[in-house]
């Protein structure tokens, strides 16, 4: 489908494709096997200016938006759905600074992130607070010119590797969801350490780790937005970051589809290529249709966000994440089917895509939470229309 990309957007795609093909493809198995963090790839992304595609030029980025981020993430994920997460997860923690940060905070953090010198991580989830984010137990107590953080965050993408952390903590438990605040915490702050590094089913080239705050003292200037705004920061962030996760799912699915088509033309059974069998053709047709629908939804939502940041996109962002991740799971499963026995073998890149795809249905809000948000928005819209 023709999406009428600008010259610069085409360049982003071309560059991301080249990095994926030339730099990531030869090492994707290595990172999947070893679960090492792909620092050499981060350097490649940095040198290519891809770390700042969604950051304004005045802060060292290339001045694109959510759409440019999605394009880069999609292309990278066609080859590897885990490694590209360094970029998407950093964006998840950079958006709150872009949306709520003061001038000083933006000047302090955005240029290094745009240049790829620093990665970022977003920390909301806790052992007892996943879908029920309001149940978080981490606290931030104000003492003079500082806040003291105590608590544990888990499943934090880029954890241990990132230099900048956005942490949601309770500043006033009596106020419930209005008692949370967002903070910027830098790595190497006294009282901030890292716990267990998770061993995962997929996206194994991405670091997922526990963050531990023990009497961690940070200056009050590190409060992001106002006190009590923590969940607003989180929700507004998800509105712009979910298309990025959706783009990850889209890339994984699109890569699987491309490989499945090529494989079906090469693989011979019963004396002919399996692409000549209708059973395979229909599978490929469904896969391609779903991938394209997913792309159209994501691109349209991303363009909406970039065109007018005032439009509320909670529903559309949730739809992107929900649809693209379900499509990714289905398409990668079917792609393994097209590959048959070879698809199940780790020697081929297909089973990995299936493992990588699964997480996209779970993180940045489970797909069940996505459906709740979409439904809530629908009901609100209908109620408003009645008035």
């Amino acid at each position: 489908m023709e999406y009428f990309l600008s010259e610069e957007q085409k360049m982003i795609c071309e560059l991301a494709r080249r990095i994926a093909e030339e730099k990531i493809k030869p090492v994707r198995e290595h990172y999947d096997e070893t679960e090492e963090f792909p620092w050499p790839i981060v350097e490649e992304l940095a040198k290519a200016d891809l770390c700042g595609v969604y950051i304004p030029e005045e802060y060292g980025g290339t001045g694109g938006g959510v759409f440019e981020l999605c394009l880069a993430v999609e292309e990278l994920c066609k080859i590897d759905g885990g490694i590209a997460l360094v970029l998407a997860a950093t964006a998840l923690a950079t958006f709150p600074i872009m949306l709520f940060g003061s001038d000083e905070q933006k000047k302090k953090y955005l240029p290094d992130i745009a240049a790829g010198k620093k990665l970022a991580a977003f920390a909301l989830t806790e052992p007892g607070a996943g879908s029920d984010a309001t149940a978080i137990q981490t606290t931030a107590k104000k003492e003079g010119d500082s806040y003291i953080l105590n608590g544990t965050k888990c499943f934090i993408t880029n954890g241990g590797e990132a230099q900048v952390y956005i942490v949601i903590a309770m500043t006033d438990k009596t106020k419930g969801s209005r008692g949370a605040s967002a903070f910027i915490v830098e790595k190497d702050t006294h009282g901030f350490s890292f716990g267990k590094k998770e061993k995962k089913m997929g996206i194994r080239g991405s670091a997922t780790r526990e963050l531990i705050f023990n009497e961690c003292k940070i200056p009050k200037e590190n409060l992001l937005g106002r006190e009590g705004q923590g969940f607003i920061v989180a929700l507004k962030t998800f509105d712009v970051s979910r298309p990025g996760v959706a783009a990850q799912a889209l890339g994984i699915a699109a890569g699987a589809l491309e490989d499945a088509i090529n494989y079906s033309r090469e693989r011979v059974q019963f004396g002919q290529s399996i692409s000549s069998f209708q059973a395979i053709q229909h599978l490929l047709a469904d896969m391609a249709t779903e991938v394209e629908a997913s792309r159209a939804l994501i691109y349209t939502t991303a363009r909406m966000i970039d065109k007018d940041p005032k439009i509320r996109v909670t529903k559309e962002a949730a739809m992107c994440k929900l649809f693209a991740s379900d499509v990714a799971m289905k398409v990668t499963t079917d792609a393994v089917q097209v590959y048959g026995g070879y698809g199940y073998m780790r020697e081929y890149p297909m089973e990995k895509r299936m493992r990588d795809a699964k997480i996209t249905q779970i993180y940045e809000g489970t797909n069940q939470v996505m459906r709740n948000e979409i439904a809530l928005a629908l009901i609100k819209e209908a109620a408003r229309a009645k008035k």
Partner: protein
Amino acid sequence: MNFIVCIKQVPGTTDVKIDPKTNTLIREGVESIVNPFDSYAIEEGLRLKERMGGKVTVISMGPPQAESALREALSMGCDEAVLLTDRAFAGSDTLATSYTLACGIKKIGEFDLVICGKQAIDGDTAQVGPGIAEKLGVPAITYVKKIEEIDQARIKVERMMEEGYEVIETNLPALITVVKEINEPRLPSLKGMVRARKAEIHMWTASDIECEKSKIGQAGSPTIVNKIFTPPPRKGGEVLLGDPEEQAEKLVDKLRQAKVI
């Protein structure tokens, strides 16, 4: 310091077709790329600039579409690009090409080092680099795999041989041709690509570079290509059976028959 990198645009495939009438490459419908060996030359030029300061100018001779190869070099970080393009250059062999590029380099002005890839993947002659050095009157060192030392006046390099390498030192200005062992070329950057798209490429014709008409294009090319063909694949050998004495006898017979001995 001023570094000049010579590049050539070549077909992005080894499966090239030859026009049987003109004995030249058919370029239509084939994706064009920067000659891979020239990418190492670009990278080395950029690394020298980063180390020593100065400027990297990239130059090519070719049809107007060779502009895209120069833009690729600019997107990697080269400062200026020159394309020598004129119908009068058409049909150049390696001698005329060397002369034309040397004239272009003279027009660019002062330079310290010219860097070329060891050869182009289409013609595979490896003649143009040394040819340019000859026309410029500077020393040439081919097959450089490492620059050991360089300062304003001298360069010391490792020249790759079949076994081992030579260490050669010479005065600047000079010309080197590089092999792929020298570095790993960088990818372009997004900012570089945006800059390269807008950058002006200097387009120079024969009259711009003060060259003698008799030394350029077909007129300046003593090489005559009669025919280009792919040699037929060699047939498998013959195995002589029997004990060593019998084999030796059979072999001597065969060699006598073939009038080798």
